[in-house]
């Protein structure tokens, strides 16, 4: 009769830091030294990684397919932009938190719409919410600046100490720090009993309800949390690029985000981060060969990934790293394809 202890043991074993994770973050930090001339694109990657982390929370852990995750990104972006533009809150970190909280509020309110209905309804409702917010932003162009976007945003130094420079060095460290803190939080959450119950819901909502998991409340909670993350990602976008325009709500942003997560794999948190790196590198590569038509190749990548099968793709991609980790670490590879990738 040691079943509960076994579950706890299993969860704890999974929650322990693996040395490859530490190596991952050390590498991320080392990038600042390795590529001193590429701060802008690296900041871009970090932002995208945070955004993908947000989608991973609802898609990879709770199984909610969202086609409109850009909604919260946009709310965060405009919030941070307006706060800075009108000088309401000039300190970036505080502004970041406020923007995140506003996105959280929007996420909480819309979560009640999203948890109703099955996959298809969810797709439509999430897409609809993003389009609705975009239409709203266009309608109130006197506040949002319409298609021109918010112009002339000037960021105050972080904590009054570190001013944003034009090479994006401060912006990169700032974004990386935010990503790391939020990643720690996400890591803690998904390994908690709360996170385990989310996985149960994803695998079988009916059974989860039967063993006493309050399905709807958990889904609302995680959706709201993901909205917070997306809002922060949006706010980071505005703060590091000093612009916010209507395309923060665009459908392409939500669709690209899904591609990021598909490349990296969902349901183990690092998927979003690895996917963001891979996606940006792909985008860079394609836009150097065909500047205007890189979307074609991105689309092709999506189609091929789906046709080959996501799980199989990840097994191939992880074959070599796992071999190395297995040889060096002597133990079982920690980076594995999540058990149920298909939602």
């Amino acid at each position, binding site marked *: 009769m040691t079943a509960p202890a076994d579950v706890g043991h299993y969860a704890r074993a999974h929650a322990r830091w693996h040395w490859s994770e530490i190596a991952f973050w050390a590498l991320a930090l080392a990038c600042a030294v390795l590529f001193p001339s590429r701060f802008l694109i690296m900041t871009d990657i970090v932002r995208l990684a945070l955004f993908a982390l947000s989608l991973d929370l609802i*898609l990879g852990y709770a199984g909610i*397919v969202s*086609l409109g995750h850009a909604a919260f990104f946009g709310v965060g972006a405009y919030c941070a932009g307006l706060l800075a533009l009108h000088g309401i809150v000039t300190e970036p970190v505080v502004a970041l938190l406020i923007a995140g909280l506003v996105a959280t509020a929007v996420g909480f309110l819309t979560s009640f*719409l999203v948890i*109703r*209905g*099955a*996959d*298809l*309804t969810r*797709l*439509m*409702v999430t*897409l*609809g*919410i993003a*389009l*609705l917010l975009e*239409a*709203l932003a266009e*309608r109130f162009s006197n506040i949002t600046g319409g298609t021109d976007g918010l112009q002339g945003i000037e960021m105050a130094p972080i904590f009054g100490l570190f001013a944003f420079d034009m090479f994006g060095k401060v912006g990169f460290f700032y974004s990386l720090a935010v990503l790391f803190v939020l990643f720690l939080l996400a890591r803690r959450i998904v390994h908690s009993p709360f996170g385990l119950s989310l996985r149960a819901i994803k695998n079988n909502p009916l059974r989860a309800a039967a063993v006493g998991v309050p399905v709807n409340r958990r889904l609302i909670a995680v959706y709201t949390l993901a909205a917070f993350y997306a809002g922060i990602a949006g706010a980071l976008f505005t703060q590091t690029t000093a612009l916010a325009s209507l395309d923060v709500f665009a*459908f*392409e942003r939500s*669709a690209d985000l*899904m*591609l990021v997560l*598909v490349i990296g794999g969902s349901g183990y948190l690092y998927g979003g981060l690895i996917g963001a790196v891979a996606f940006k590198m792909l985008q860079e590569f394609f836009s150097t060969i065909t500047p*205007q*038509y*890189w*979307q*074609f190749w*991105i*689309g*092709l*990548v*999506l*189609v091929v*990934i*789906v*046709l080959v099968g*996501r799980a199989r793709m990840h097994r191939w991609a992880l074959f070599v790293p796992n071999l190395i980790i297995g040889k060096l670490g002597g133990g079982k590879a920690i980076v594995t394809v999540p058990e149920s990738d*298909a*939602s």
Partner: protein
Amino acid sequence: MTTLFTILFDGVAYGMLLFVLACGLAVTLGLMNFVNLAHGAFAMTGGYVCAVLVNQSGWPFFAALPLAFVSSAAIGVVLERSLYRHLYARSHLDQVLFSVGLVFMSVAAVDYIMGSSRIFIKLPAALEGQIDFFGVGIGRYRLVIIVICGLLTAALQLVLARTRFGSRLRAAVDNPRAASGLGINVPQVFAFTFAFGCGLAGLGGALSAEILGLDPYFPLKFMIYFLIVVTVGGSSSITGPFLASLLLGIGDVAGKYYVPKMGPFVIYTIMIVILIWRPNGLFGRTAAR
């Protein structure tokens, strides 16, 4: 009063167009339960084929329309047999990713071949201008659209309800296993239906170039409209999507006229409310499984 009638008339024409564009999706999404976000790409193909034939090769408009249908249907059947077929049993997420990928590819490909600016199709002189009907100005082209789409709708309804093929399709959708047990070639029925739906979308794309505008971003811009038609209309019959498209058409035209600044806002709000209120669509039974 006359503006009211004009709005109603334009709305009906618009709605009819939406129906022809989206009814193929009603079958794939509503009946076969495949989330095909790339449906608009087939419509765009038809539109561009028609535009090239009329503008560059000098074909008469009405001769180019069937070719728009045929070319979209041909592309549809090729894609169905080669790609779509493998994804029927996959998760919705896979289907979404796949079709979004197709949309991106089609947008960039058309941009590359035809350029990114909006394209107009030269209409025959007989279709331009308005006729006066008891003081209400009626656009000739819109009248033609209503006639064509009305005939198509009636024909579709007849085919689905009265013919052997219609009953096979309904059987294949209701229970594919039992249907194939009865000797119905289910994949063939699906492939044919898919191709026909794509063809209709192509025809709709050709007809709508004048009203909705035709540019490479067509599949993205109107994706949500097609989805609305299907999810709101449900899929138990062809009448549901038909009524939904009429509602959407009239609502959109009226919304743009009376509250121009709120335009799309009204549509999206209505859609979300309906989906929350009746997740299976206004007239449907299994639209959202």
